[in-house]
Structures are given as structure tokens and as C-alpha cells.
């Protein structure tokens, strides 16, 4: 018997080289032609616009979603389009002590602070404010308690269990504190300085007292107050070389206005605070008999399937809302399916069909640009509608709600023309279809 001698070294090196070569060829790169000769079939993409009677019905506008205090900002207005608005704000309590260094440079707690100055600073959202020049504002101390969530122009509290009107509409009795002029060209904020008596009143007072009302005295304007706080300046007997500055954050903030907007007799309304929503029913034809290029490519009658809808957009034309509520900032619109139409206006809503960022509409389109067509994508909603009942047999919603996002986001609201007339809504569909793919 003879056994051929094994030489591991050379064989292993060769095999490793082979492995490298084969591994290099493993990187997939599928063959493709130099032109489109190997692409079978040719999809066709067509654009359709359905008029309101062909797709829409039961248009309704609902109001009252959310509360002004959820906006994160407040509004003051004076005779702006016939609307008055005042801001109500409360602040945290005064500090009772502070850590200071004494003459020996030791850190000690001083509980006998002396407040030598205080002022309320209000910063405005210049984009959302209508003034272009100087306006005058007044700060007063409220003398009647108010409920942040339910306060209105006429009631200090108006929830289901308690309705407590102001002694006078618009915030009841107040103690005037200071008036100030905001010169827009010089900055975006104003300071209302407190006198010593006011400081004494607020120091140690309950939360209900440490509350102010901001009024706009200049008629014909509407301002958005984005931030308010009280700044305190204090000294310590333990450290006479140091001045202490404290900031009292806002603990409650809302605004009250009058008169409230009335529901529109027609058209779409979206936004505001409390917010408006527009609800409508959608219907789509199950089959299409045109346009000719669609029939030529996929045959007619053409059974409309979800995958054919590559885009669906609700085409709305902007309309100018009442002057008091004319948007001065972009309005972001969201569309969601209404999960239980009978439960409206409190029906739960489905997820956004527009996307996480919504559809943003510039404010100019509601003023000088009124009548401009804006398309709000609702592709996901239409696809779900065409998909039919889900696995549990539940039919898809055919009702959608158009709302602002976040809700509420601003005092003003957007309006669009409704059915009837040349500016009626349309449903724009971009459909793509192809013949069934067959084997060669």
C-alpha cells in the first residue's frame, strides 16, 4: 500500500485563494440590459379629478375641540375684527430663602430676603401678531379667581359642575398695575414694572392673588403672547455685595375672548382655539370606464384597487375667514379617519393619513391669495377605503375629519370653500395601472 504524502501548506494557500475569488463573485449584481428592451409591460399613470357630487357628501363643521390654555401661548386683542381678547396669567410663589455667602465666605441660607424690584416680562410672537408699529398694553391684578381650563369671556369657571360668571364680562374686577408701550421695532417683549406696594401684595399671597390680566389698549390689533414670567430682584443682609435675581414661571395661562366665532353656514373650517374640525363622507366608484389611456392599458371597466391609487388629494380652495380669525401664521392641517360617525362630535379618530408633519398652508393664501387651490394628500385613507373590510370583517371608515395639528395650535383658523359654486372641493386621483404581468 502506498500513501501519497500530504502537503498541507500549499493546498491550504490555494484553497484560500479560491475562496477569495468565489467570495468576490458572490457580491450580487443582477444582469440588466443597456436599454429598456427587457422591461415587460408598460404601466400607465393617469390623473383624474372627481367633482364633489362624485365623491363627497355630508359636510359638517364641528367646534369646541381643545381649550385656549392648551395652546402654549395667549392672545390679546382690542376691537380686532370686532373681537376683544385678554390674557390671564398666574405665577409661582415668591422664594422664601436663598443660598448666599456670608462675610466669612461660608454658604448660608438667608430667609430674610429684601425684594427691591419686580417686573412682568411678556414676549410676543411677532409672526402671529398683527401690529406693525407701536401698541399699548395694560397689566392688572385679577381680583376674582378663575379656572384656567374653563374660563371664558363671561364666566370665570364654566365646567359641568360649576358655572361662575365674572362680576363683569371680560375677567371681572381688576386692580390696575401698569401700562406699557411695545415698540415692535425695538424688540419682541415688554416689561411691566411693579411698585413696592404691588411687590408686597404678591409676596406671600396665595396663588389666586398672584395673577394678572394683560389687556391690549390699542384698537385694531391682535397680539400673541408667547411667554410671560415675573422677574424678582432681591438683596440679602448676609451678603450685601450681591444682588439676587429670581424668575417666577407661569403656573396658569389662558385667554378669554368675545364674541366667539359662529359656525360657518357652508364650507370648511379648520383650527382655532377651541378648535374647529370639518367632517365629510367619501365615496369612490368601484370601477372606472376611462380615461381612454387607462382602458387601453388595463382594460375597462377598470376595477379600482388600492395599489392603483398612487396619490389621492383633497383639492380645496382657500377662503378668507372673519377678520378677527384671519391666520397670520402657517396653518398645519391633518386628516384622520372618523372611526364612529354616530359618535360625532366626540368620535375617536384614526391615525393621520397626511403624515407626521401634516400639510402646511401659508397664511397669505387666506388673505390676498384666497381662492388658491391646495391639495391635502389623503392617499392612505383612499387606499384603506378601497381595501374593504379588515381581517375582522370591520368595514373601513368612509368619513374623514380635517383638523389642525397640533390641536389647538393658534387662535385663528383656516377656511375653504364648500360644495356648490366654482370653488367646490375636488378629489384628485393619480392612478397607475398595468396589464397583469405574465410569464414570457
Amino acid at each position, binding site marked *: *500500500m*502506498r*500513501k*501519497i504524502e*500530504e*502537503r*498541507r501548506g*500549499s*493546498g*491550504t494557500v*490555494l*484553497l*484560500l485563494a*479560491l*475562496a477569495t*475569488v*468565489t*467570495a*468576490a*463573485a*458572490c*457580491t*450580487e*449584481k*443582477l*444582469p*440588466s*440590459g*443597456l*436599454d*429598456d*428592451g*427587457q*422591461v*415587460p*409591460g*408598460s*404601466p400607465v*399613470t393617469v*390623473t383624474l*379629478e372627481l367633482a364633489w357630487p362624485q365623491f363627497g357628501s355630508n359636510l359638517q363643521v364641528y367646534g369646541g375641540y381643545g381649550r385656549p390654555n392648551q395652546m402654549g401661548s395667549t392672545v390679546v386683542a382690542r376691537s380686532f375684527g370686532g373681537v376683544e381678547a385678554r390674557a390671564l396669567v398666574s405665577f409661582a410663589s415668591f422664594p422664601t430663602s436663598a443660598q448666599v455667602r456670608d462675610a466669612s465666605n461660608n454658604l448660608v441660607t438667608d430667609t430674610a430676603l429684601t425684594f427691591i424690584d419686580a417686573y412682568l416680562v411678556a414676549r410676543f410672537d411677532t409672526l402671529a401678531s398683527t401690529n406693525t408699529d407701536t401698541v399699548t398694553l395694560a397689566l392688572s391684578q385679577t381680583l376674582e379667581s378663575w379656572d384656567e381650563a374653563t374660563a371664558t369671556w363671561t364666566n370665570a369657571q364654566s365646567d359641568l359642575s360649576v358655572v361662575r360668571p365674572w362680576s363683569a364680562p371680560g375677567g371681572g374686577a381688576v386692580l390696575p398695575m401698569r401700562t406699557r408701550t411695545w415698540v415692535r421695532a425695538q424688540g419682541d417683549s415688554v416689561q411691566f414694572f411693579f411698585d413696592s406696594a404691588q411687590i408686597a401684595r404678591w409676596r406671600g399671597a396665595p396663588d389666586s392673588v398672584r395673577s394678572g390680566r394683560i389687556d391690549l389698549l390699542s384698537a385694531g390689533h391682535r397680539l400673541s403672547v408667547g411667554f410671560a414670567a415675573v422677574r424678582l430682584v432681591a438683596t440679602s443682609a448676609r451678603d450685601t455685595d450681591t444682588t439676587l435675581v429670581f424668575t417666577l414661571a407661569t403656573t396658569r395661562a389662558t385667554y378669554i375672548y368675545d364674541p366667539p366665532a359662529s359656525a360657518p353656514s357652508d364650507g370648511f373650517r379648520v383650527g382655532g382655539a377651541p378648535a374647529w374640525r370639518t367632517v365629510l363622507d367619501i365615496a369612490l366608484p368601484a370601477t372606472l370606464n376611462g380615461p381612454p389611456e387607462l382602458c387601453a392599458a388595463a382594460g375597462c371597466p377598470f376595477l379600482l384597487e388600492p*395599489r*392603483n*391609487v*398612487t*396619490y389621492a*388629494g383633497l383639492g380645496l380652495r382657500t377662503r378668507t375667514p372673519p377678520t378677527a380669525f384671519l391666520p397670520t401664521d402657517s396653518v398645519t392641517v391633518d386628516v384622520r379617519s372618523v372611526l364612529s360617525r354616530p359618535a360625532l362630535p366626540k368620535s375617536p379618530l384614526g391615525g393621520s393619513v397626511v403624515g407626521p408633519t401634516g400639510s402646511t398652508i401659508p397664511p397669505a393664501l387666506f388673505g390676498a391669495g384666497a381662492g388658491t387651490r391646495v*391639495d391635502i*394628500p389623503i*392617499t392612505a385613507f383612499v387606499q384603506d377605503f378601497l381595501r374593504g373590510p379588515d381581517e375582522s370583517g370591520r368595514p373601513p371608515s368612509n368619513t374623514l375629519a380635517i383638523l389642525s395639528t397640533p390641536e389647538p395650535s393658534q387662535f385663528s383658523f383656516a377656511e375653504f370653500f364648500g360644495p356648490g359654486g366654482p370653488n367646490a372641493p375636488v378629489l*384628485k386621483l*393619480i392612478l*397607475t*395601472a*398595468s396589464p*397583469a*404581468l*405574465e*410569464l*414570457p
Partner: protein
Amino acid sequence: MRVSILVAAASLWAAAAPLQAQSLFNAAGIGFPMEAVDGRARALGSSGLGLPGTSLLPVDPAASARLLIPGGLMVVQPSWVDLTRDGDSGHRYFRGSRFPVFAAAYPVRGGMATVHLTSVLDQAYTGERIVNVNLGSSTTQATDRFEQAGAVSSLGIGYSRMVASTMAVGISAGRYAGSVSRTLTREFGDSALANQVLPYRAGGSWSYSGYQVTVGVSSDVTAFLRLAASATYSTELDADPSAQTAGSRRSFDMPLQLRLGASSQLAPGLTLAASASRADWSGTEGDLLSGEAGAATSVGLGLELAQAQLFGRTTPLRAGFRRRTLPFALEGGGANEQTFSGGLGIPLNVTSEIVLASLDLGLEKGNRTSGSFREDFWRGTVSLRVTGF
């Protein structure tokens, strides 16, 4: 030496893991016919029949009868392809690997039972088309992308035995398997509706089925001449669509395949191998929605120098030439492939003059042409064969 076998097996396995495409001719007809042959046959320009020694190739079902002991075969085939077209200055380069055959044999009742998994038709390719689409208020570019992925393969069993001291016969039966998916996607480019128009997607998938039987005979006519022949009969290849597929069920006629091979020892250690095959696919043309189908013929010739020494061991050296016509063409006028090949065999483990493990390498330089299309390619074939496990 066990390390070498493990490395070889690992590299083959890693390379074979994805089933990948190797030619744009995959787009022609019902695909590109793949040949279940090993590195030795490739290097010799052979169809795999009538070669000296033993074989586990399913195209030569009688050859395994001479194996006597259990054996296994794995083959991987990487290739690098450059596609050009007359009148078009551009070119496409693609690469990929496939595994044409896995086979195993085991002695049963005086003969040899075999099982094999082979590739039959490669169908993977992509295509792209740019079109202008009117979106109502604007026109934008859209990209139509077509992708076909899949292949027809065959899983079979066979049996062979010596019926005389110099003659063996064999038979194998297999079932077609595999699937193909075809997807057409339209993606829309930037426009006023950017990011709002969703892609359109259509497609379907089909599963293949059908049967084939191969019979073969191999005879050592003289001490210096071996002859072998085989024939494969197939039922129709059926393609059944999945439930979600809008496309229809299809059946494709599969031709009778005839093969002939011979090898002759010209001098001690020097062997001449020749082979030819024919399959008339013209009957399939009637099953195609478009395109042509014709006869696929193949002739090959090669020389093997069995006593060459490399790295101090006996390493057979091989060279060959092969020309064949393809059944499906990208354009009218047929399609041809021709290759010049070379290769070597590396015995990894030899005991008592029995090769327990060997590696066969084949490297082909060739081209495929059809009308204005031309593919120049390098194709490697690496096969690992083990016996006696």
C-alpha cells in the same frame, strides 16, 4: 489535509449560498439553460459524458456505477460578465455565482443510488426604464424597474449499475421545482407632489412543477475508448401562479435532450474527450407570448494531461473548447456561446490510489452573442468531490 477539505467546503458553501444570475440571456424565453456539470467537464469543454474515471453528474447517470463507494459532489460557478451592444457605447458589468449541482451516491444492491439537486433554467435579471409622467399640474420623471428573481431546478434520484465488466447503465428521475417572481415598480421623481406620490407595484410569483427521466449508458468499448450516451425526457414545465398573482397558469414544452460523449487515451496520461448534445426547443416557442425558440446544440473537445505535477503532487491539467447554440435569443437570429477553457484537478486526499477528496477547477473565457448583444465573460467552476465517507 482535513483543514484543506474544510476550507474548500466552506468556500463552496459560502459562494453558493445565494442563487444569483450570470447572464442577460436569463431574460430570453423561459431562461438561460444551466448545465449540471463539474469543474473537470468545464475545463475539458465537455457536456459531462464519457469522461475517464467515475462521475456523479446527473447528465451521465450510468457513470456513477463505477464509483463503488459512497461519494458526494458540490459545484459552485462564479462568473464575471461584460455586456455590450452594437451601436451602444455603454456596457453593463455584472457578476454572480450559482451552484449547478449537488449530488451524492451510495451503494445499494450491487449498484449505486444517487440523489441530486441541479439547476435547470436561470431566470434572474432586472430592467429599468425612464418615462415622463403627467401628474395633472406637472410632468415628472418616473422610473419603471422590473425585477425577475428565480430559477427552475430539479430534485432527482437515480440508480446505476454495471451490467457487464465494461458497461454500465443508469436511470434517474427528477421533479422540477423552483419558483419565479416578477415585480414591476414605478417610482415617481421629484415634482410639486414630491414625496406624496406613492410607488406603484405590480407583480406575481409562480411555482414550477413537472417531471423528467434520464437514462444513460456508458461503455468502455476498448481499453482506450469510452463511449457514453444519455437522453432526458420531460413532461411539460408547469408554472402555477400564487393566489395573489393576476397572471395566468402556464405550461411550457420541454424538449427531449440527447447527449453523447467519448474519451480516448491517446497516450499514457493523455486523454482526448469529446461530447455533443442536442435539444430541440422549437416546440416551446408556441408556449411563449413573445420571442423565438430553436434547437440547442453543443459540441466540445478537450485534452487532459493526467500525469502533470504541481506543488509536488499529481495534478491533472485540462484544456478545451466548446461551442453551443442557445434555445432562446435576445434578438432574432439565434444565440451562440463559445468558450475556451482550462483547468486542473487537485487531489486533496488520496489513499491506496483512491481519491477520497479532490478539487476540480475550470476557468472559461467565452462570449455569448445574439443579434446586436454580446456578452464577454469569465466563468469559473469549482467542484469539490469526496468519496468514502
